[in-house]
């Protein structure tokens, strides 16, 4: 058991190796580490989004099950709509995975060329000159409340 990964454990972390090899690439290494940390954060968010959606789907399905013998059509409809909206996790998971993929592409390109990582496509500008960030790390309810407040303001 202790042999698993034993050889790898003796290797210096890749970031250290790069730093040593370059002898002055601190900025580049820091940028790479930041990208990787953001990638880990995105992965955690994927897990959380999928878990939340699965819980909502299960809650609604259980609600439907409990209503199966009753004639409470309105409640059943509400539960079904909740199941449907929970399935929107597919969109959010897809957007987060795209961000991760583009970040990893960026890291790989940086390692290959030895140049400083550039902004990923997902966080870069689009034709409309608006930088898109994708799903946030706040709760949707918090974001919606903040946006509603912005819309309540006059100009």
């Amino acid at each position, binding site marked *: 058991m202790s042999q698993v990964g034993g050889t790898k454990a003796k290797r210096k972390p890749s970031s250290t190796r790069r730093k040593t090899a370059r002898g002055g690439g601190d900025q580049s290494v820091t940028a790479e580490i930041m990208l990787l940390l953001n990638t880990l954060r995105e992965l955690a968010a994927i897990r959380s989004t999928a878990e939340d*959606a699965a819980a909502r789907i299960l809650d609604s399905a259980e609600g439907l099950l409990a209503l199966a013998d009753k004639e409470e059509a309105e409640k059943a*409809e*509400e539960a079904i*709509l*909740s199941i*449907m*909206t*929970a*399935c*929107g*996790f*597919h*969109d*959010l998971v*897809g*957007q987060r995975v795209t961000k991760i993929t583009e970040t990893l592409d960026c890291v790989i390109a940086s390692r290959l060329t030895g140049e400083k990582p550039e902004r990923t496509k997902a966080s870069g500008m*689009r*034709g*409309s000159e*608006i*930088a*898109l*960030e*994708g*799903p*946030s790390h*706040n709760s*949707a309810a918090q*974001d*919606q409340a*903040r*946006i509603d407040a*912005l*819309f309540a303001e006059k100009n």
Partner: protein
Amino acid sequence: MALDPSMPVLVVDDYKTMIRIIHNLLKQLGFVNIDEASDGTAALNMMREKDYGLVISDWNMEPMTGYELLREVRADDRLSRTPFIMVTAESKTDNVIAAKKAGVNNYIVKPFNAATLKSKIDAIFGEPS
């Protein structure tokens, strides 16, 4: 502006799942005339062919984003007054403000629920939620 459930509604999103979800929610709210487009360019072409009473659009699409669609719609004399709701994962304040300045009528952040969609539609058409 009164809410007429028979008015044509255009749903724009590049994720088929989201189109399906919004389509179903609109049907539950009583809308019967619902069309779909997978990006801004297709939506704009459809809007030039048919008068829509409401557009519900995602932001992050290619080749034309929802924001670009909104700007095209607001710049077009015939389409400029079409109610427009942005339904998107983009919640950065600067982007919300940009959409508001571009003339979006309301803004829904994903993930959302049926009650939020209904309340935003009602708010545009002056219906009590």
